[in-house]
């Protein structure tokens, strides 16, 4: 137990049991971004999968939206300590996007409009664990929340769910992304409270 804060009782809720350690519940949807919000026109938008040298797959907005989409209801956890339960998204599963991609790469780097990047093990994007989401709460995804489309990897802290995503680069060696080079944890599992380097 930590140092007792004299006179502090805190505010507990029934939802606490569903929260990872050190998180608090919010009904708002706060925003964490390192720079200005990019505004990406749908007729210019594309999503690519590449191997660092060659583009393997490419979709424009129409081709992307023609793919089968799913409704996803998940809890999301931000490293800045808020969690939001039961959020409803619509998106295309990464399993669908990777259906005919053959690779022995073990790592992935998600790339965004505005030059944000974040790295993950490729297996964390597979098997119904990750989506490219384009709707939130029955509305088109707002630019400040990553619209027109963002990566959604709800089992990791939300900085791994790259906003304004434009592609995924497959890698044989792990390369840290934006926050991962600025002191944040390389993997970011909220249930193991992997917030910062060394956690």
């Amino acid at each position, binding site marked *: *137990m930590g140092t007792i*804060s*004299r006179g502090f009782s805190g505010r*507990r809720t029934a939802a606490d049991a569903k929260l990872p350690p050190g998180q608090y519940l919010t009904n*708002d949807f706060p*925003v964490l971004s*390192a*720079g*200005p919000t990019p505004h990406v026109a749908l007729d210019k938008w594309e999503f690519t999968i590449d191997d660092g040298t060659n583009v393997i797959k490419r979709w424009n907005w129409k081709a992307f939206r023609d793919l089968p989409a799913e409704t996803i209801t998940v809890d999301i956890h931000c490293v800045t300590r808020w969690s939001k339960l039961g959020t409803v998204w619509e998106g295309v599963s990464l399993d669908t996007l990777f259906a005919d991609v053959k690779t022995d790469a073990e790592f992935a780097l998600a790339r965004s409009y505005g030059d944000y990047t974040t790295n993950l093990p490729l297996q964390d994007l597979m098997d119904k664990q990750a989506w490219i989401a384009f709707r939130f709460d029955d509305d088109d995804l707002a630019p400040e929340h990553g619209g027109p489309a963002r990566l959604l990897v709800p089992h990791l802290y939300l900085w791994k769910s790259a906003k304004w995503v434009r592609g995924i680069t497959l890698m044989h060696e792990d390369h840290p992304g934006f926050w991962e080079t600025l002191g944040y944890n390389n993997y970011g599992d909220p249930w193991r409270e992997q917030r910062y380097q060394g956690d």
Partner: protein
Amino acid sequence: MWRIGTVVDLRDETATARTITLQVPDWPGHLAGQHVDVRLTAADGYSAARSYSIASAPNTEGRVEITVEGLPNGEVSPYLTQQVASGDRLELRGPLGGWFVWRTEQTEPIQLIAGGSGIVPLMAMIRSRAASGSSAPFRLLYSVREPGAVFYRDELRKRSENEHSPTLTYAYTRITPKDWPRPPGRIGASLVAEAAWPSQLVPTCYVCGPTPFVESAAGFLSACGNGQDKIRTERFGPTGGRK
């Protein structure tokens, strides 16, 4: 790793915000713009933590100041603004964040834009500039609800007069001082164009405040020709309008 800080000074900034000075014996040092996590623990072991920007300049004395705005329905902030007393010990973790920082070796013009309590990390930059003897030219555009909501008022005025930096522009959203030249209102494109460094000087811009404020201020900076890679942002609170 959680460190223990002892509260050595408390100072009210406004009716709702308070600066807490902590002495942290094993503090590893920080950069202007970084933040800390502060953790409170109840007698039964329940704990709650929140992030707060550091207000003090980097120093070697293990002194860490935070300025906390008490949120009406907050869990941690009302304790920090109303209950904490001198001599109390608080747990903190940090310093955290390596992007929204100003380093003393930066010599380019610096544009700071604060909305409300978003002034806190920018104040650390202003103090760091002064403490290091830097001659980097700073400008601050500070948007607040009303004159009584300004943090660090006297210090900002003195620094702006004596050190000629930052150049200070206030923008009031609800109530202005008497005879103020502009009517109250949110900052707009023309005020940003007028008060901020011309983009030709390639300033680095730091914008901190509530999410809708940062969205619009960063947008105005972009519209004035500042490159996306020159605008660093820190947002807090919910998005406006819809949830």
